[in-house]
């Protein structure tokens, strides 16, 4: 039963992860953890007392029968009955309390673990990891392990209980012979091996087949999520998606089951071998009693200990195995949490303050860029200089590299070659957070936050998001204030119908995103304005209004504008035409039109339709 080493987590790492997991549990809620441990202790000890006292009762009965109740053995027997009663009641009553505490601890730990991953991922300074399929794999796995680590909390306390119980049983079994518990413990090792082996095989196999399960989940998402809903229906994909989901799910699961089935036989054999020690010790005690070397009462009591010790050992192993299974992917999650520190994939050693720079001129100097692991050159020795306070428009066909250029400016990636200067300083030398705080950006694929309108706009300057005057001004400037004021709960309206809010149209969303960029610009001193397709869904009037206000918006700000709408492009003072990652034309609209290059060609395609109308002629 070979396990591909690629999918095996070294045991050291696993152990370390489990210990850190426990630490995280404690950190998530110290009081709950303490209560949980105490309760586990008590619920371990109470049944242990029951065992020991039952032994005491049985061994004292025969002597007591001889001399009457009012004797030492008689008293001992009576005490045993009373203690038994108390222990039994205590161990029963504690159950519900423990359940409630477990519930609270598990939930808190789960939320805490989520936040730790959130912190770990959002600490990654750049975007390079998101291109990395191994990282995405790990992220997806971390997402769908869900409650497993939280469940191990319960198994951990179950384990503690079993350990205590084992010692109690061992004491009783030792009534027969001191070596009995030792033999039982050693003899149970095969059961431990069975449990360990099972988790190794299954954990590794599940990991290997997780891409299949992820695919299955992808198809499931297509069927269940809101976003693909329209296309799913138009294309009639229900059955296709269901079938694909089933196929990938089965591909992923069948291999796991096959391995599990194979471990079944081996496990059964190992458990039978592990039973040999119980059988041996018991029969040896029985023979001793038959031979009269051991007393019947003591034999009866120690039998309980012998059987009990062995089953508590199995319980210990099984708890350990369950913890291991549930935490099999914990190292993975922990790795994600510390990636930003261990391997940020973006140089974050820059400390220079980006505040108070005199003039925010931008220079791209021989910038070449390729996504990690990809062959395609996106930017090819690109040189571009944007004087402080001026505005340029980036134009070019789809895939020319315009959006990538913006991503480099935001330092989501660093150039493969060359450098980018802001106010004459390589942007890598700035403190990253400060650098970004100088940029106000609207991305082409801006985010629809399922949150209030106030959050959707305010997130542009999160520290100032409670500043109503600023929110109002940002919304007003992009013409969305009336819309927001007209929402059922005004600024507090959630912008998502599935969160009991309202949905906006495509153009309205775009204005909200524009307002967010405005918020950044006004609220946090962001003097570089980057607008990637800001008018794609805007209606004519709003595009026109934006055009009218553009000079006002961009005054004193260095502005980069990306658009396919030549009507939008002309807002900028200067136009830069990109093709295959290079700049092939650069100048004002009039200059580029005169030179009759690619720009004028594409411009004509759009403009001709208006001219034919006769309105302009």
């Amino acid at each position, binding site marked *: 039963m070979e396990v591909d080493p690629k999918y095996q987590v070294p045991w050291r790492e696993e152990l370390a992860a489990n210990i850190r997991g426990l630490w995280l549990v404690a950190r998530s809620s110290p009081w709950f953890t303490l209560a949980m441990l105490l309760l586990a202790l008590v619920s371990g000890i109470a049944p242990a007392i029951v065992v020991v006292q039952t032994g005491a*009762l049985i061994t004292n009965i025969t002597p007591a029968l001889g001399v009457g109740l009012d004797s030492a053995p008689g008293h001992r027997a009576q005490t045993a009955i009373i203690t038994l*009663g108390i222990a039994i*009641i205590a161990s*029963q*009553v504690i159950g*519900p309390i423990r*359940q*409630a505490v477990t519930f609270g601890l598990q*939930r*808190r730990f789960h*939320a805490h673990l*989520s936040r730790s991953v*959130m912190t770990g991922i*959002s600490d990654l300074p750049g975007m390079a990891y*998101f291109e990395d*399929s191994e990282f995405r794999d790990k992220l997806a796995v971390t997402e769908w392990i869900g409650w497993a680590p939280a469940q191990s909390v319960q198994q951990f306390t179950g384990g503690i209980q079993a350990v205590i119980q084992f010692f109690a049983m061992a004491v009783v079994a030792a009534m027969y012979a001191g070596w009995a518990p030792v033999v039982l413990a050693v003899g149970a090792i095969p059961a431990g091996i069975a449990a360990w082996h099972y988790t190794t095989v299954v954990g590794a196999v599940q990991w290997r087949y997780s891409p299949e399960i*992820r695919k299955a989940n*992808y*198809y499931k998402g297509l069927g269940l999520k809101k976003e693909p809903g329209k296309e799913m229906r*138009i*294309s*009639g994909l229900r059955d296709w*998606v*269901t079938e694909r989901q*089933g196929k990938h*799910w089965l591909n992923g*699961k069948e291999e796991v*089951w096959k391995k*599990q089935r194979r471990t*079944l036989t081996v*496990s059964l054999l190992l*458990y039978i071998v*592990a039973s*040999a020690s*119980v059988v041996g010790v*018991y*029969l040896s005690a*029985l023979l001793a009693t038959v031979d009269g070397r051991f007393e019947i009462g003591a034999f*009866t009591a120690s039998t*309980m200990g012998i*059987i009990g010790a062995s*089953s508590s050992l199995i319980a210990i192993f099984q708890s350990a195995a369950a913890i291991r299974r549930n935490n099999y992917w914990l190292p993975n999650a922990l790795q994600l949490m510390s990636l930003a520190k261990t391997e940020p994939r973006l140089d974050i050693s820059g400390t220079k303050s980006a505040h108070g720079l005199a003039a925010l001129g931008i220079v791209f100097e021989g910038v070449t860029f390729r996504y990690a692991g990809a*062959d395609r050159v996106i930017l090819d020795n690109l040189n571009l200089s944007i004087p402080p306070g001026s505005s340029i428009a980036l134009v070019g066909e*789809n895939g020319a590299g315009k959006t990538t250029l913006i991503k480099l400016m*935001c330092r989501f990636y660093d150039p493969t070659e060359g450098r980018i200067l802001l106010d004459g300083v390589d942007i890598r030398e700035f403190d990253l957070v400060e650098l*970004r705080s100088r940029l106000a950006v609207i991305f082409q694929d801006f*985010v629809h936050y399922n949150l209030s309108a106030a959050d959707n706009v305010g997130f*542009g300057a999160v520290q100032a998001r409670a500043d109503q005057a600023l929110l109002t001004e940002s919304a007003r400037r992009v013409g969305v204030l009336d819309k927001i004021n007209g929402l059922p709960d005004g600024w507090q309206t959630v912008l998502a119908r599935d*969160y*009991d809010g309202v*949905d906006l149209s*495509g*153009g309205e969303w775009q204005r909200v995103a524009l307002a*967010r960029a405005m918020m*950044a610009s006004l609220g946090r001193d962001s003097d570089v304005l980057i607008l990637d397709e800001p008018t*794609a869904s805007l209606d*004519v009037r709003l595009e026109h209004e934006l055009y009218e206000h553009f000079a006002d918006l961009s005054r004193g700000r260095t502005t980069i504008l990306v658009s*396919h709408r030549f009507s939008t492009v002309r807002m900028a003072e200067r136009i830069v035409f990109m093709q295959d990652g290079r700049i092939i034309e650069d100048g004002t609209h009039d200059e580029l039109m005169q030179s009759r290059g690619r720009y004028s060609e*594409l411009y004509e395609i759009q403009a001709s339709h*208006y001219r034919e109308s006769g309105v302009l002629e």
Partner: protein
Amino acid sequence: MRKHLRRMKRVYGTMIGLAWSSARNRAAGLFAVIMLLAVAGAAQSFMTKLVIDALQAGAKDTAITMGVIYMVIVAGSNSLSGVFGLLHFDLADRIGQELDRRLIKISAGLPGLDHLERAEFADKMKIVKERSGIPGEMLNMFNLIGYVIVGLSVSVVLLGFIHPLLAVLPFISVPTGYFQYRSNRKHFKEFDKTAPEERLATHYVELTTGIEAAKEVRLFGLAGHLIGAHKKLTDAYIRKLFLDRVRRSGVGLVSGLAYGLALAGSVALLGWLALRGRATIGELAMGVALARVAIGRVEMADQLVAWSAELSFVGERYLWLFDYESDVKLDGAGLTPPKVITQGITIDDVHFTYPGTETAVLNGVSLFIPAGSTIALVGENGAGKSTLVKLLCRFYDPTSGSIKVDGTDLRQIDVEKWRQGSAVSFQDFVKYQLTAREAVGVGELEANFDGARVAAAARQANATSVINRLPDGVDTQLGRDFEGGIELSEGEWQRIALARGSMRTDPALLILDEPTASLDARAEHAVFERFAEMARPGGAPPPVAVLVSHRFSTVRMADLIVVLNDGIIEELGTHDELMRRGGRYCELFSLQASRYD
């Protein structure tokens, strides 16, 4: 109460049927094993007695024989229970998968869209998703019921032989089970209330860890705020749930006390009997063991009752989802739509308000679209253009008024067939994480991802260059989600989406809903050329073509331009007519044209 029972009958009936149909042999096998374990548990206690009785009677050989049999049972049941967990691993998996499959079929199969935008539907989905393992556990529950019954009856009979009272004691806690059930049901109802908050918490996690918001989170420095909001939110609802749980643990305490008293009473009674010499040591040992078995089983029974409260909670929500009635009713005649529209589409005084909202989006739209014509919908953001398109696709039915195709109400037409005859490209297209061939080919499954068909569609949408640039051509995996996938730029994605929309070669209805937002001028031009061609009399009968766009350069090509404003038609006519009229259209057109001077 009766209603509750009836509902439960349905929940369990459905769930059992599901378990049975997904894995009957395994279920039966597992049941046999657990029955064996139940009998073995009681038999062990009985064997203890036999061994000790034989020892006390001095029957050495019998004692040894009995001891060996005892050990065989111990070794057997230890080994079986050791691997018991492994026996049913795939059962729960299979049941969970079967439920998933049904949910996909239902959610993707509901003809309308409303459920996907409805908070209540999403809440129920969240609840069943978080507890997808529970129905699988149900099978276990039935096994355990058998386990309880067998274990309990064997031990009670044996206990009765020692003393009749011992047979009765285990049952004193039974009445508490009912109260536990009720209390648990109430507890689980709390999760209905926290479901929206739990969904929001997931949204915060997705925003912070997902790629969709990664750029903004970094640029705007949102992580701290989002994580803080997550903490505030989860702390609050966990606290609420925990306190509810604590409040309800009173019932559990009473039950616990009852079990404790029953067991302690049994042991005391046995001890007293033994001290009086009315029970042998063998009987004492067996009695104590059996009393523990019996009360343990009663306790388990109570747990099962409590557990069933959770199962029925989840089951009821599954059924709610299974029974969900779409706002788009399918009780129409299910007529086959015309292959080609011969007269036209009549929109007659259509009003529409999204379910669950108050603001009307369409306020009485009436329009006749003649067969073979192209119309353009224009208007400002939020005017109702996309909504009208959604009604034409029948994602919703009009709140009042009707849409007729060649005189037949759309509601009378089979919705799937109607859509099969439609080719639609949306503004918010899907970025399918599939191969390029699949991402285009899903536009018409009947083409079976045929290379020539896909290539033709790509050509039409100007996506050939996008595909040619991919390392493995049309079989390249797209997107970042899966290994080896190539991420495309927004405009490239849009071309793939347009190619998908071109897979249906002779649709009765063609809709382009702002399909060019991210396209460069050349690609945009190509799309509009295709649209314009639809209008020209060619070989094939032309479809009714509907275009939504803010690009007036294209809009003007349409046979009929419809200007929507606040949910009503403000202007209607050809480009020339509207320009002459000098209304809103003329104003907007001139506004845009002025920028191309």
